[in-house]
């Protein structure tokens, strides 16, 4: 009986101890928040080492920004609010997937444009070639005779 009481006491008091430590470590132990931090920071570019995300980079700025995102997650901000926070400070450049708008149209539409251009050029070339083949005159009588002789030379009947 005493053992059960002790066990209950331990189990029931643990959450209270954990709850008292609301700080960065709390977010780290909260798997949901930590996952959000991970996915958010994997979408954001570190401006110091520009080909790394904030999640990958060990630059001081990336650490500061991860800290900042942690704080915002704890404060109950939405993912969109956190992304907006970054964009108002560092511009669309922090986003690995920049939004589609006037200035980024070439970026998003460029590859598709090049593909269409390639298809167009290919079709034009193919059509031109088939027209050329069609337009070529068939063999003249003399050429047909020559071809016949040549073929006979290879495999005589």
């Amino acid at each position, binding site marked *: 009986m005493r053992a059960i009481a002790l066990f209950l006491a331990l189990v029931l008091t643990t959450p209270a101890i954990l709850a008292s430590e609301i700080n960065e470590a709390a977010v780290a132990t909260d798997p949901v928040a930590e996952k959000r931090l991970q996915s958010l920071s994997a979408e954001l570019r570190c*401006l*110091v080492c*520009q080909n790394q995300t904030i999640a990958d980079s060990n630059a*001081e*700025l990336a650490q*500061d*920004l991860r800290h*900042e995102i942690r704080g915002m997650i704890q404060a109950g901000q939405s993912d969109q609010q956190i992304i907006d926070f970054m*964009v*108002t*400070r*560092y*511009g*669309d*450049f922090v986003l690995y997937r920049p939004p589609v708008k006037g200035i980024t149209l070439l970026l998003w539409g460029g590859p598709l444009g090049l593909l269409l251009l390639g298809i167009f050029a290919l079709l034009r070339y193919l059509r031109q070639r088939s027209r050329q083949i069609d337009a070529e005159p068939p063999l003249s009588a003399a050429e047909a005779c020559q071809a016949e002789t040549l073929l006979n030379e290879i495999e005589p009947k």
Partner: protein
Amino acid sequence: MNRYYWILGAFAALVVLLGIGLNLDPRDVPSPLIGKPAPAFNLTVLATPEKTLGPKDMQGKVWLLNVWSTWCVSCRQEHPVLVEFSKRANVPLIGLNYKEVRGDGDFDMSKIKADEEKTLALQRAAKWLSQHGNPYTQTLMDLDGRVGIDYGVYGVPETYVIDKAGIIRMKHTGPISPEALEQKILPLLAELNK
């Protein structure tokens, strides 16, 4: 033959395009803050640590905000240009000392307490300015870099030109060269002060 000229032309165009790409500075990221109000803050003043200063106090003036630190190597390169500027131009130059202690890799921050960090930062900044010359009207202490984040600072030194209405009009990333000062910053200041 005509076809080969076409391919050669396309290749030349590609070379030109790549050439332009290579000559762009990837660190020169346009700041989204240009044309927006300078983010508010209130930071400790180096000369009078019991007082604070912020963009609000600078309303009605055209001023420069220069982000620097004693551990920042490029800031040393920029420093003589700023000293020269402060002698010539009649424009307030506010220094934003960015992460003086915790930005310096030499310190183990787990061993330094908050009040110690502040004292140390003030000491280091004051000593450095007295040794190298002080171009700043005032120097403000951004100990944790939080104001730096609001201003989108990602590489010290950085300089912001802020107009009379408190709007950021220009941002210069990296050390200011004498050419950049003459050709970009001074003309803009003259125009804003008209």
